[in-house]
């Protein structure tokens, strides 16, 4: 008789949380970004409700600045699971005047996603939005709950969070309010990759090393794509890179890497001395950038 592994225990906890969502809410949705964390959440949801289909649709907030590989992966996954896909378009939010596009060299649609996300949640009357955020990613996320209450404006109030004890989750809410739920709160980046390896989950090619046209800005590599305006001094070069996190092209830092396999990636992460969000331009805007975005209703 031996105890179960940390991966088994984390998986078991996440499946428990996903089943609580199905039991406590009427219209839950999984926020799917195409990144490794949301891929793991979808895999866990598949296991939690097997042999029934995942009882939630997938929602992708599309900034229009996605890597081509992300969209291909998303469509293939949805097809394989027989899941329902809903796309919230940031371009549409811009076209209808809901948000104004940023300009300048650092223009990004990352912040604009919040409006599109909240509009989509309202339009479909979603009462729980399941995300792949993890507490180890960022200091404001370290205090996030599994079941995180949002008021009718979609805002997070970090000072008035509901306490969470044992494994009892309180998803009660008033009309118009919703919850964000984070089933993999307790996972680290390493846990995620070890789990992907253990489960043999197929991953988007962006996570493995590939040749790409890139340029360097503020000490990090970014993809040279039409949606980013280059400064006159910035030179486009070709490098062997991979994504450590996948988001919108404008804020996804690329890592110089030769990792061809999941084993290589795990080895690379074990040796790295920089956090995965160290490559995210959106977090570098200020000391409490993440908390400020989360308060407004960000992922």
């Amino acid at each position: 008789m031996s105890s179960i592994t940390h991966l088994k225990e984390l998986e078991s906890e996440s499946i428990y949380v996903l089943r609580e969502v199905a039991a406590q809410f009427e219209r839950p949705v999984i926020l799917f970004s195409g990144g490794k964390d949301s891929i793991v959440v979808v895999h866990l949801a598949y296991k939690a409700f097997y042999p029934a289909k995942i009882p939630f649709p997938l929602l992708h907030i599309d900034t229009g600045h996605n890597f081509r590989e992300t969209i291909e992966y998303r469509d293939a996954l949805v097809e394989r699971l027989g899941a329902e896909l809903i796309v919230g378009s940031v371009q549409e939010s811009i076209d209808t005047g809901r948000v104004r596009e940023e300009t300048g060299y650092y223009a990004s649609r990352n912040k604009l996603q919040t409006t599109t996300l909240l509009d989509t949640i309202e339009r479909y009357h979603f009462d729980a939005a399941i995300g792949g955020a993890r507490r180890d990613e960022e200091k404001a996320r370290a205090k996030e709950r599994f079941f995180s209450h949002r008021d009718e404006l979609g805002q997070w109030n970090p000072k008035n969070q509901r306490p969470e004890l044992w494994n009892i989750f309180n998803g009660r809410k008033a009309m118009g309010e919703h919850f964000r739920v984070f089933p993999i709160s307790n996972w680290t980046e390493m846990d995620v990759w070890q789990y992907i390896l253990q489960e043999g989950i197929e991953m988007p090619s962006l996570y493995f090393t590939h040749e790409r046209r890139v340029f360097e800005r503020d000490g990090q590599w970014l993809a040279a794509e039409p949606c980013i305006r280059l400064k006159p001094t910035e030179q486009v070069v070709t490098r062997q890179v991979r994504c450590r996190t996948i988001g919108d092209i404008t804020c996804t830092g690329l890592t110089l890497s030769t990792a061809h396999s999941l084993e290589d990636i795990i080895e690379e992460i074990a040796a790295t001395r920089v956090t995965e969000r160290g490559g995210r331009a959106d977090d570098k805007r200020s000391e409490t950038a993440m908390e400020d975005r989360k308060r407004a209703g960000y992922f």
Partner: protein
Amino acid sequence: MQLLRFSTAGSVDDGKSTLIGRLLYDSKSIFEDQLEAVEAASKSRGNEEVNLALLTDGLRAEREQGITIDVAYRYFATPRRKFIIADTPGHIQYTRNMVTGASTADLSIILIDARHGVLEQTVRHSYISSLLGIQHIVVAVNKMDLVDFSEEVFDRIVADYRDMAQALHIGNVTFIPISARDGDNVVNRSERMPWYTGAALLEFLETVPVGRDACDETAGGLGAFRFPVQYVIRPISSRFPDFRGYAGRVAGGVVRVGDRVRVLPDGLESEVTHITQAADELTEAFPPESVTIRLADDIDISRGDVIVRADEPQPCQQQDLTLDVCWFNENPLQIRSRYVVRQAAGESLGIVRSINFRRNVNTLEKETGVTSLNMNDIAEISVHTAQPLVFDEYRQNKITGSVIFIDPDTNETVGAGMIKN
């Protein structure tokens, strides 16, 4: 690799943040960009030394006020184990945060300043750990460098602590003399305290038995099988036309295919035909596994029902409960107030019948004649529920023995309860 969850309680003065910073730093769990950010933030605040508390104090208000308000979760791993730290503030006005952090911990680290010995807050932290049923307590006697690494000082603190612990019925305590600032006995054994022959803190955390290994078979092992049903899986598809699976997480004991089971509260019996995790068929399941169970008979089972083994001790089913509660909300608990009493899966409306006594968490004295409970109060109360709850005593089973109180008007979680009987 196994997982160990532990909580730490204490104030900045105890060196708690320094200790956590040391564990993270020495196990290489702090990254360069995090350290740079903390260094920059410390400098801009005029701190002379790098303030490791800024690593854990992530919220704007916490950084501005220089205090930890909430429970912060921290993660690190060594080649032997993965750790989750629930880092909680130690002051009395954060008792509720300590209770929250302790509710999921296997182990609790209590810090004592070697210069000051056992204090009021030591008693408070120990009491909360004991109340929440934490299996192991580590008393880390910190700042040994400031008392010349004296064995005598350490021994006196150990003796004082044991006197206090006896009154609390705390059994499993390990004492380690450390210097968090210099790293003595934190990750590596200290050469400056040759008289201490035990393990360094990290070594102890890596080897202390957890989960199934920690269960004493002679004392009933994992206890009786308990399976609160979370959700019923019914695909209603052509491939699985008659599939009806009961989804949940094993809350105690072991269940095997072929076991005779009883479904509460109705009491109907059946036999386990399948235990599955997704497509994998298992022969048995134990805590904390999430599985799907199928039974031989078509009985009506819904969320909140509890599946137990017919040949084992049965849980209680009653409407009158006595509980230890910790109050979380600014609105006081009052006698005759109504709350939603929620268990892991089941719930019922309940009314507070009486407050039997309030516990002074500093002196441990019982205070009687109390008519309401304020935020952070801990007390024994009696509650009557509209429907019978299926439960075990908290001492027997933390999952089937715990409840939260929800204010039906605001939907807030206002209190936590541990059922006594």
